[in-house]
């Protein structure tokens, strides 16, 4: 008897996998459906992909989403990298600092989003891309922080000590020793922050203001207006991008140290 095996856990797991992935495959399948009424299957076609490529509002929303995700992920990664270096060794208050860094993960997103809306309107920050970049940066910090911190934990301090024994100053040690060892973690953190920002709907929904929609905000209003095959196609594109990037990040965190 294998003590690690429990009856029914395999069946439940298979059911859960179907539950998690069936909707995804249904969506992808329908996106290649030629029929206008999104649920009746006629034959395979790429019409809807061509159509979203030629849709100017989707192009504008895609551009906004990309600018937003790159800016927020870059800012979040830099901030998270500095914070990870600060919390590398134990010190009084490290737990408190880490809890604070994880705060955006714990709080309900809608509450932080409306609170940020109130603050921005009160202090006169115009809603739109800039406002979204600020808000996205904050909730991306924990996603960038965790892989960087994990990678840093695996780097022995003796490399840096050796560099300093050889008269490298702190900055040079960081640039020539720590950073090269750390980069898979930094890249993994950036990727996760990028995906998180790209996929965010709620915060952008409240802070986008008139004229600057992101892709998820566009998809939401399109669904509200009625289900169309274009939504299936653009949703599929978003799914595939997320899956590719997360797999990349997963591979990076597994790179040999």
């Amino acid at each position, binding site marked *: 008897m294998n003590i690690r095996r429990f009856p029914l856990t395999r069946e439940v797991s298979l059911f859960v996998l179907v539950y998690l992935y069936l909707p995804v495959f249904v969506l992808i399948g329908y996106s290649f459906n030629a029929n206008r009424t999104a649920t009746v299957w006629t034959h395979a076609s790429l019409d809807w992909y061509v159509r979203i490529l030629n849709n100017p509002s989707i192009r504008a929303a895609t551009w906004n989403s990309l600018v937003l995700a790159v800016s927020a992920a870059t800012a979040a990664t830099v901030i998270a990298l500095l914070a990870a270096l600060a919390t590398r060794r134990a010190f009084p208050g490290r737990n408190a600092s880490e809890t604070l860094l994880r705060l955006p993960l714990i709080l309900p997103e809608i509450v932080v989003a*409306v609170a*940020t809306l109130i603050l921005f309107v009160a202090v006169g920050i115009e809603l739109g891309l800039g406002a979204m970049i600020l808000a996205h940066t904050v909730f991306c910090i924990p996603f960038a922080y965790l892989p960087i911190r994990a990678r840093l934990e695996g780097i022995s301090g003796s490399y840096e000590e050796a560099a300093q024994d050889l008269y490298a100053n702190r900055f040079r040690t960081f640039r020539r020793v720590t950073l090269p060892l750390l980069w898979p973690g930094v890249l993994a953190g950036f990727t996760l922050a990028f995906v998180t920002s790209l996929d965010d709907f709620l915060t952008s929904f409240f802070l986008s203001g008139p004229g600057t929609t992101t892709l998820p905000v566009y998809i939401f209003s399109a669904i509200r207006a009625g289900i169309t095959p274009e939504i299936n196609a653009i949703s599929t594109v978003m799914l595939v991008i997320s899956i590719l990037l997360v797999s990349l990040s997963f591979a990076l965190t597994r790179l040999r140290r």
Partner: protein
Amino acid sequence: MSQSDTLRRTALMLPALLAILLLVGAPLGLMGWVSLLEKGSSAGVDWASAPSLGNYQRLIWEEDFDGTLLWNTNYLVIFLRSVAQAAVTTLLCLVLGVPVALWMAGLSPTGRAVMLLLVTIPFWTNLLVRNYAWLIILREGGWLGMAVDAIWPFGPVQLLYNDVAVAIGLTYSFLPFMILPVYSVFEKFDWRLVEAAHDLGATRSRALRRVILPVAMPGLLAGSLLVFIPCLGAFVTPALLGGGKTLMLGNVIQMQFGPSRNWPFGAAISVVLLAIMLVAMTALALWRNRRPA
């Protein structure tokens, strides 16, 4: 530890601390203040109004024309429904997530890595898109609806726009939040304890109940909290799958900041949501730290 170390560490932490204080702390504080104010005539907030608890009062009582207070259960019902919906989802995630985590822990290292990736991917893909996928499946004329209609003898079934659809969508959205922390406990689990239990004559189910589950409890609690809290504030799932009929707290908050333009009232509901969340977290922390019987 030298003083320069402390200084260096503070300088490195500063950007993160500033970002979180200015863009999470300050907004939440301001929101608490706004929840005491009145709504403005055109814009969201009348900043000059005298602070009062009127918005919180409105959650329970309604003022009649002559100023008498009437019991108003509209918001109370939405609160209770949100808590119930979040609790049912947490329960469903436990029932589905714990067996998955247990099964994953018994796999080969490669099997674990593959399952970990498979469970993590939905967590990172777009929540909106994933809920939209359910909309396609559950909608009228969808193939699942037709399949159910073929089996169900009592006329056509409405799968979409009800509490069941919302529960399906919420469980689907947050299941990885349960599986991952529970799995991380099972992964580190010392299986020799189970061997010992078997040697002492425990059956499989007894070993599960008396050895494995007690050790896994911190993971179960963490997972439950990670599912319960975002469920309470869910907006997308009830908006798409509940179809405006089955409102949850998140939708009421959005309405106050959108069409109703009553920001102070929306702020008050948000504060109450945060309060429920704090109560849930404190209750779990107390329960976790209780003295072993």
